[in-house]
């Protein structure tokens, strides 16, 4: 009943209740008024007595609209019931009739679904003849294929589940299985869809009666009333519009109710107002990247997620800095913030955040980064636009930022593809990304970064999605690119060995903070933070005794919504004491730990 908490759901249900009330009691309450002939008031306009006027016999049209609700709704429901039963049977055909016959039924349903409903309705209207009963059959039969397809999909989903398989093995009969095990499990979506179908059937019926193919005089439904009213639309528009409004309201009632229950609750998340800004500071000298007190907050379903909680660091010209940590440590978010790729509602705050001499916190800085900052993402399979060829995707950088023409930019793209060692770059540039292998795409992605003259390459887990041999090639390529261009590198990775191989300096992140910062060569031997040590211990190396179980870090990473007050690592730390649990250790001398360097 959560649907009722949304305004849409409430509107739908209230409307539906009104419509059903009119259908149930309309003829009883207003039946007399609707048939009372008033010869003094033929075809009268709206008045206090007749709210939307009278028809050619002086009968009150408002009462007639209310009375017509019953026939309109009943016919729509009857048609829906026909569509539903038939659709269920057809949809269950593969289950009831066995594979081969079932497939034939499914194929025919697929052919029929391609035809618009109204066309099917007209076809059946021909067969069943003009009139209410024929129209109900026509609308019902025409609705069956779409219903059948839905049921087919639902049933296919359910019959893969364990209990159905178990029932099948236990030798439960087909019909019984359908009734006992399948139907109850698809009832909810089927009923939701049926509600919407009822709305659609109502409209179709109105259309049929309006065309004169549905309900015939002296009976009347809303469509018939509209048909009668249309001729007089010059003098008496409400006679046609009144029943029309009734149709729309009733259709809305069914649709809104169905939609509210189908969609379920949806929450959008908002951040509370920002806290006080960090005091503005100046970027470090000789650095290509400098961040001070960087904070990133992301709205989440259970409150704001403090993904990065005050990180300060810089990367010197030509330096290679690695950031390691488990997933959820904030390292990737840090990379995105540094690359200026986070957008509202994600909130980025910092004392300063400068990349290649541009202040990222100031508006308009981003465009100038087009040639000086290169970004390599984790998943090369999804990072290229599948709709465009590879060459033009690279060339776009030069066309857009360096003002090259189409030809010149494409030539540069080919040249860059060659530079990242892609064979036959001329042909490759004309291919779509899906024709590239994963490693090739990652190299092409690096090539894209080389279209400009990057001073900094931000690489977010560039090798994680690749297999081991390709990983090596990509890392070597990154090293070569740095040697050739002198670009600095910010390498994000969960893999300690990748970072130690490639980088000069390493930042270790945990729960949105830097917990240790040290030269890469010291990582294995000289780490002082218990978390860093645990990370390093978890990596097998030459000296690891492979007969002993691999070290793992006990416990789970911190829930970023609910970071504990003291040291975030305390729940998993072998050295933790009460002081650790209450006072957060600041980053001092490259390590944030009250007991830095102590042996466990």
């Amino acid at each position, binding site marked *: 009943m959560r649907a009722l908490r949304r305004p849409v759901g409430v509107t739908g249900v209230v409307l539906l209740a009104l419509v059903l009330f009119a259908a149930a009691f309309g003829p009883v309450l207003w039946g007399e008024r609707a048939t009372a002939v008033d010869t003094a008031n033929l075809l009268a306009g709206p008045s206090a007595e007749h709210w939307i006027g009278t028809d050619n016999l002086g009968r009150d049209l408002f009462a007639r609209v209310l009375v017509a609700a019953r026939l309109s709704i009943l016919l729509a429901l009857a048609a829906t019931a026909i569509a539903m039963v038939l659709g269920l049977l057809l949809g269950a055909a593969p289950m009831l009739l066995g594979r081969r016959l079932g497939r034939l039924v499914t194929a025919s349903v697929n052919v029929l679904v391609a035809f*618009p409903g109204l066309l099917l309705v007209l076809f059946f209207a*021909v067969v069943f003849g003009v009139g209410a009963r024929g129209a109900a059959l026509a609308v019902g039969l025409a609705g069956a294929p779409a219903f059948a397809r839905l049921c087919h999909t639902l049933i296919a989903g359910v019959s893969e589940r364990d209990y159905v398989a178990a029932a099948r093995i236990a030798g439960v009969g087909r019909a019984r299985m359908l009734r006992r095990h399948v139907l109850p499990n698809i009832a909810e979506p089927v009923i939701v869809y049926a509600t919407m179908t009822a709305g659609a059937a109502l409209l179709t019926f109105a259309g049929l009666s309006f065309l004169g193919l549905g309900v015939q005089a002296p009976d009347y439904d809303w469509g018939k009333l509209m048909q009668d009213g249309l001729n007089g639309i010059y003098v008496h528009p409400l006679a046609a519009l009144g029943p029309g409004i009734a149709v729309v309201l009733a259709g*809305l009632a069914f649709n809104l109710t169905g939609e509210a229950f189908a969609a379920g609750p949806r929450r959008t998340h908002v951040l509370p107002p920002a806290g006080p800004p960090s005091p503005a500071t100046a970027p470090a000298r000789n650095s290509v990247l400098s961040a001070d007190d960087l904070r990133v907050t992301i709205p989440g379903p259970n409150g704001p997620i403090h993904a990065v909680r005050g990180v300060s660091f810089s990367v010197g010209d030509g330096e290679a800095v690695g950031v390691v940590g488990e997933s959820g440590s904030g390292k990737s978010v840090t990379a995105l913030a540094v690359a200026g790729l986070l957008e509202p509602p994600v909130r980025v705050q910092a004392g300063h955040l400068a990349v290649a001499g541009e202040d990222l916190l100031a508006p308009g800085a981003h465009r100038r980064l087009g040639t000086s900052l290169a970004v390599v993402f984790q998943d090369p399979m999804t990072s290229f636009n599948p*709709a465009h060829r590879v060459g033009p995707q690279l060339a776009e950088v030069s066309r857009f930022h360096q003002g090259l023409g189409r030809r010149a930019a494409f030539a540069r793209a080919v040249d860059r593809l060659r530079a990242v060692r892609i064979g036959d770059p001329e042909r490759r540039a004309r291919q779509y990304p899906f024709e590239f292998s994963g490693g090739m795409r990652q190299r092409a992605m690096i090539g894209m970064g080389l279209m400009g003259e990057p001073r900094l390459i931000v690489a977010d887990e560039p090798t994680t999605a690749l297999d081991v041999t390709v990983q090596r090639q990509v890392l070597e390529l990154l090293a070569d690119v740095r040697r050739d261009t002198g670009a600095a590198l910010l390498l994000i990775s969960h893999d300690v060995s990748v970072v130690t191989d490639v980088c000069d300096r390493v930042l270790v992140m945990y729960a949105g903070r830097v917990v240790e910062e040290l030269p890469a060569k010291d990582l294995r031997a000289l780490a002082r933070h218990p978390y860093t040590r645990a990370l390093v211990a978890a990596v097998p190396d030459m000296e690891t005794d492979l007969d002993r179980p691999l070290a793992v870090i006990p416990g789970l990473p911190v829930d970023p919504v609910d970071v504990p007050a003291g040291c975030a690592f305390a729940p998993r730390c072998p050295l933790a004491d009460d002081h650790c649990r209450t006072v957060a250790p600041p980053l001092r001398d490259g390590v944030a730990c009250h007991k830095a360097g102590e042996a466990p």
Partner: protein
Amino acid sequence: MKTATAGLKAGPRVGPRVGRWPRFALRRAARLLASLWVLVTASFLMIHLVPGDPVRAALGPTAPADLVLAHKEELGLLDPLWQQYATFLGHLLQGDLGVSIASRLPVGEVIAQQLPATAELALLAFLLAVAVAVPVGVVMAVLTRRGRGRRAELAFTGANVVVSAIPDFLLGVGLVYLLAVQTHVFPVAGRAGPDSYVLPVLALAIGPAAVLSRIVRVEMLAVMEADYVRTARAKRLTPVRVHVVHALPNAVTATLTIGGLALSSLVAGTVLVENVFAWPGLGSSIVSSIVAKDYPLVQGTVLVYGVGVLLINTVVDVALALLDPRSAIGEA
């Protein structure tokens, strides 16, 4: 078949273009033929499914028995069913759809006369719907992504639900009331001069435009979260370029699929709208011929509508395959 699999297996080396298209064409053509066969057979059977004596029903209870018999003879209803089917197919192949019972005119001629009016209406309405829906959907997606522009979103979805709940013929009636009866801006009915097109086209286009814009928005919202859009932003392109050049083409696939559905239901929707506006097209004639039980004419009209729908579906599929080369191999 062999070349196709070989091309696929070898992947980029041989160039997957080889063999992909013939295979796709073959599969698509087979589906079109199967659907056509279903359509033709259904319209053949239609007259036989009518309970009672269709010719008697058409001519009325007072018609003399020998006239009924003569008509039956002419329609070939006295032959065995298989022979009727064969004759029907044979005639169809020659473009012969029979003779209308009511007007005694060849059905093909009647339809040829009315088809342009209907096709014009459907095509114009479709173009209008797409021209409105795509920009509106894109702009709404950009405005409301990631929970921004809450009010704009509420207004858009609210208006959208209401508008798409109003059937086209009712919109027609409403438009006639507002713009023809009340203000005399446009003619009430008929087909004469460009301004007579405005109301019927609007009535037909508004509903599909609402549905389509909703789809475009949802698709765009999904696409804008994709990694390659982040890549495009990392290239520091302008937002317009990111959205239009990088996101939109990827949203087109689903949009086109739904757009095709919208177009074919729009073709059917012309039936009602034509009746509201007394538009001299197929829709007006099919209704009157259903009421008059002029079966040959109904048969021919249903066939033409059905073929139209099937052609649209095929064109959409081919366009999809051209736009998104993966879909042509993907759906094996």
